[in-house]
């Protein structure tokens, strides 16, 4: 399926600036028309959007971004724009999440300057709202009326909410044994919620085949080319919120690896378009030991990611066959980063450390990030004087099961003052 990029036919000041010239294979460079495709016809490699960089350069500026909406669409000139019609854009207020200075956590970890990119604040509580907003906007411009995804939970929540908000039917495929909060967080929006007896990788393969026989827009299959670009906005926001500066080091969770790759791409685009000067940040990735195919390849000093069967409480990162693992390793290699892994008990400790020092309740992926950050500081991979940003990608209220055995009430009392005071000791 293909679509022609619409040319503005109105003088409406709100008209968007279409900015794509095609889709190019990341492996062989073959270029195809903008459309509902994600795999190269020639070599089967993944496709990536090709921007009209001259057109972008003629409009983008710090001032234009700062005058834009308080959402990720302030960076709309740098995101896939397939039509001039602003009605195609889906905006639930995603993005421009807080970049919090985290001095108490920095002190505990042995860093001089630490910031948290707090994506627990997105509309459905995870960074997935970024990629879904971009994917559904592209899908609407392509004339798609039914949206779908393969999900470890957060993506399903986001697709369900966004589809509900625009009145589109949705099919959400998830492993049947996900955390209750992630199942109900999708179901409440009324999608067709399909639970699959298998791992996320099984769900993924099923969806790749379903996408082939149905005309639906699977955000992370046939809309993936557009979808993945949404994660660039994490990098854009970090730089803008630091006062149009790059940090020294970013630590991000790794599931498919796409977020890490796109944060790097965001930084590079900001520099390419003259929005930020300076050295590009180092970027390191964080995995759970129970699903660490990218970290395992990094340890072997290899770019060959061997699939694993996940077994970890970090369900949102439990992708044993990560599509962008190879590219995440390339980013770590090029920027001087690393990809580490931590066992489940350190993930729980990471969630608690973050919550107890900074008041941010992260889901398991956030615990993975903090625990890996701790190890990277201890090992000297991250130096004390590096200005570091940790990406906290999802909200802890979705995965309360993970900490249910670790935290609870301090003591229970009768409703009488004496009883309470006796417990205080």
């Amino acid at each position, binding site marked *: 399926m293909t679509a022609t990029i619409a040319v503005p036919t109105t003088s409406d000041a709100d008209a968007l600036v279409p900015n794509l010239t095609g889709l190019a294979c990341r492996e062989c460079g073959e270029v195809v028309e903008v459309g509902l495709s994600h795999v190269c016809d*020639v070599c*089967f*490699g993944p496709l990536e959007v090709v921007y009209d960089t001259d057109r972008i350069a003629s409009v983008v500026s710090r001032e234009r971004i700062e005058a834009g909406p308080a959402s990720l669409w302030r960076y709309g000139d740098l995101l896939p724009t397939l039509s001039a019609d602003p009605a195609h854009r889906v905006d639930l207020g995603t993005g421009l999440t807080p970049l919090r200075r985290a001095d108490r956590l920095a002190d505990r970890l042995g860093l001089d300057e630490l910031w948290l990119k707090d994506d627990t604040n997105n509309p459905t509580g995870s960074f997935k709202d970024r990629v879904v907003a971009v994917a559904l906007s592209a899908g609407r411009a392509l004339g798609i009326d039914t949206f779908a995804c393969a999900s*470890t939970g957060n993506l399903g929540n986001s697709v369900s909410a966004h589809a509900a908000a625009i009145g589109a039917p949705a099919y959400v495929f998830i492993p049947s044994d996900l955390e209750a909060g992630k199942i109900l967080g999708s179901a409440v929006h009324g999608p067709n919620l399909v639970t699959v007896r298998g791992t996320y990788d099984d769900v*993924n393969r099923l969806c790749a085949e379903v996408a082939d026989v149905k005309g639906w827009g699977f955000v*992370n299959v046939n809309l993936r080319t557009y979808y*993945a670009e949404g994660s660039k906005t994490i990098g854009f926001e970090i730089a803008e919120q630091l006062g149009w500066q790059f940090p020294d080091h970013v630590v991000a969770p790794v599931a498919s690896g796409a977020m890490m790759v796109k944060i790097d791409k965001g930084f590079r685009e900001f520099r390419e378009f003259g929005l930020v000067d300076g050295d590009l940040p180092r970027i390191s990735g964080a995995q759970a030991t129970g699903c660490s195919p990218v970290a395992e390849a990094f340890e072997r000093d290899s770019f060959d990611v061997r699939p694993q069967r996940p077994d970890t409480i970090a369900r949102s990162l439990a992708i044993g066959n*990560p599509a962008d693992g190879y590219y995440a390793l390339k980013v770590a290699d090029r920027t001087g980063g690393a990809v580490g892994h931590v066992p489940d008990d350190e993930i729980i400790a990471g969630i608690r450390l973050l919550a107890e020092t900074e008041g941010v309740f992260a889901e398991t992926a956030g615990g993975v990030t903090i625990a890996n950050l701790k190890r990277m500081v201890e090992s000297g991979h991250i130096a004390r004087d590096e200005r570091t940003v940790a990406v906290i990608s999802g909200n802890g209220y979705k995965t309360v099961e993970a900490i249910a055995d670790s935290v609870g009430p301090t003591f229970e009392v009768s409703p009488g003052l004496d009883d309470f005071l006796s417990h205080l000791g």
Partner: protein
Amino acid sequence: MPTVRIPTPLRKQTDGRSQVDVAGDDLRTVVANLTAAHPGLADRILDEGGDLRRFVNVFVRDEDIRFQDGLDTAVGDSDVVSIVPAVAGG
């Protein structure tokens, strides 16, 4: 005879057919017979060394062949072989 499911990007090489029956009792033989019958497929799914390309995932009986015996994975007469592109995260 095993059935091979062909994804959309590769159907130009199979005259538009979404699945084809190919003889062979292991995956290596099935792939060899498949690419012999549809010559355009070889360049797309195999690299210069004759191994599967990085972004080509193959499943036999719904199981990734990297958890089985790779190209030496046994294939039965009623088995389904799926060729599936890699997918983004969730």
